[in-house]
């Protein structure tokens, strides 16, 4: 029996001020109880999509439903069932950790006794029991992120929206966050819609991933399906100099595709260990010198490269310099 589609988007489009098309006719669905990830570089349209789904941004064209409710027609009903953990560190600095949680509970109409119980449980979940009575301004960046996750869950939402939940965290804290999110999904069946530009995050955490770039979904599926799509291992070979040997490489057995960028060849191989000797021998026989050679198992970066023609890792290096980013950096110290 197929699961309920708890989020559905059909030709969702967002144009800001009539000029900037941030999201362009995207369609997707999220099943109840799954972790669905939007993977893409900065400016790809991930946050805009979340904003349309959580009622912060109007929908220019198309339609979206959350828990069966049309987002444009019934925004208040949508807000009742969602939890939102934004990119920004929004927990109040001057309030204590517990006060932030209880305030959020009150705004979500959770009875006071129940709110205290949930706050205690959530603080335990995110390992912040010992810091509950401290003001948030004394928290580290990782503690703030964990508190933020707890705030998003205090009213036990049906769907949790996480916008870049581990942005700016060190790898240990990021791993902890993944653990919390995975546990929430497994233990309570919470549906999670998340955006990220961390490949490992999407790969390790999400049941299904959509790769988005320039406001368009390029491909979607489970991480393993997407990686299979790349066509096996990828051999990257750089020659010192010489003519274009793309056609020669394509003619070798077990080579499924070759892409060339100057003297760097990206060769897709179903099984690299079997094809490697023939490639090296063939190149050497032509009198060419190999400067560098490496092969990788396919990653989501390979998938991204495959569908967009560029690497996510290169894209991620161009971080935005908005006010909140500065504030974020300040708060993460």
């Amino acid at each position, binding site marked *: 029996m197929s699961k309920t589609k708890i989020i559905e988007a059909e030709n969702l489009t967002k144009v800001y001020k009539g000029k900037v098309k941030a999201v362009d006719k995207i369609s997707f669905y999220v099943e109840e109880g799954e972790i669905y990830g939007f993977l893409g570089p900065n400016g790809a349209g991930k946050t805009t999509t979340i904003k349309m789904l959580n009622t912060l941004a109007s929908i220019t064209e198309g339609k979206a439903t959350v828990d069966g409710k049309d987002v444009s027609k019934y925004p208040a009903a949508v807000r009742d069932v969602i939890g*939102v953990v934004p990119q*920004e560190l*929004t927990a109040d600095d*001057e309030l204590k950790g517990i006060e932030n949680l209880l305030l959020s509970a*009150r705004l979500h109409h959770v009875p006071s006794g129940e709110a205290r119980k949930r706050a205690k449980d959530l603080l335990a979940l995110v390992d912040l029991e010992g810091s509950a009575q401290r003001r948030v301004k004394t928290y580290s960046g990782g503690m703030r992120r964990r508190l933020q996750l707890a705030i998003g869950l205090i009213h036990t939402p049906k769907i949790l929206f996480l916008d870049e939940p581990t942005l700016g965290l060190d790898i240990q804290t990021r791993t902890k966050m993944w653990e919390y999110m995975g546990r929430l999904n497994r233990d309570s069946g919470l549906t999670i819609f998340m955006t990220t530009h961390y490949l490992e995050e999407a790969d390790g955490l999400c049941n299904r991933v959509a790769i988005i770039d320039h406001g368009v979904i390029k491909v979607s599926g489970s991480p393993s399906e997407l990686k299979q799509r790349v066509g096996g291992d990828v051999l990257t070979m750089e020659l010192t100099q010489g003519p274009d040997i793309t056609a020669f490489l394509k003619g070798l057995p077990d080579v499924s595709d070759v892409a060339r960028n100057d003297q760097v060849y990206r060769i897709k191989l179903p099984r690299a260990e079997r094809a490697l000797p023939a490639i090296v021998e063939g190149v050497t026989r032509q009198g060419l010198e190999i400067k560098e050679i490496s092969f990788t198992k396919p990653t989501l970066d390979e998938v991204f490269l495959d569908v967009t023609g560029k690497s996510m890792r290169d894209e991620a290096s161009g971080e935005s310099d908005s006010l909140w980013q500065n504030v974020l950096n300040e708060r993460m110290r």
Partner: protein
Amino acid sequence: MIDETLALTNRALKKWIRNPASVLPGLFTAAFYIALFGNSVNPTNFIPTSSNGVAIPAATLAAIKAGIFATTFGGAANYITYLTAGVICLIVVFNMSFGGIDIVLDRQLGYFNTLLTSPIPRASIFFSGVLQNLAKAMLLALLTFVVALLVPDGLKLTSSFGPFEFLGAFAVFAMLGFGLSCVFTALALILRSIDSLVAIVNFINLPLIFMSNALFPSTSFPSWLKAISGVNPVSKACEATRILIINGNPSASGQLGTFTGDVLYLVGFVVVMTLLGYLAATRAMRPE
């Protein structure tokens, strides 16, 4: 709606109280206006103490000063007694106008979006902005009143100034504050940068103070300024509260008509500003 409004107001006040750097400047401003401005700019200080090299007798000087206070300063015992209501109105105006900065910051830091994605009425967000600034201003108004009583040769209350007059005066300050807070909260919700807000606030609040009788009686104003001052809600609030502070019970002092007119004017001001502010604010809180 009420619970959410109170929850958000409580949040803002907790933040305010816990951060002395945000409370003390307001208090210092009040103290400086009362103690420094009140003494240095006291108009009766400008009366010459001698004429043609002959000293004017102290009793004559005192009689001249008393005459000026009786005719020009509404019967106040001294300039600080006259000034107190004006300084409190000034504190109210400045707190309301700059109170919006917290709202802009909430928006810039992303906290505002967490409110917009919560299942709370938009009116709660608007009215909590109004109430938090009003509560801050009223506390500062109270402290200013105390400062005015404590400074040497400060506020002199008449024997007919009792609890009702005290509550009446603060109710008038609160009406002025509420109306202004509606305007400035809406402005803060519309404008998304602190620079723009500060520029507009300064454009509004300085004329609002200087084109009123907050610091000096409007009798000395040129006719055009007097006309503007006559419809300025700050002038109305100052006039009504001065009637209570200087003369006590308005009926007893024969100023009930003026007092009632001022209060009704402020009620109208509150109603109109609440409607306009709320409409503008809900528009500003629509999805992007």
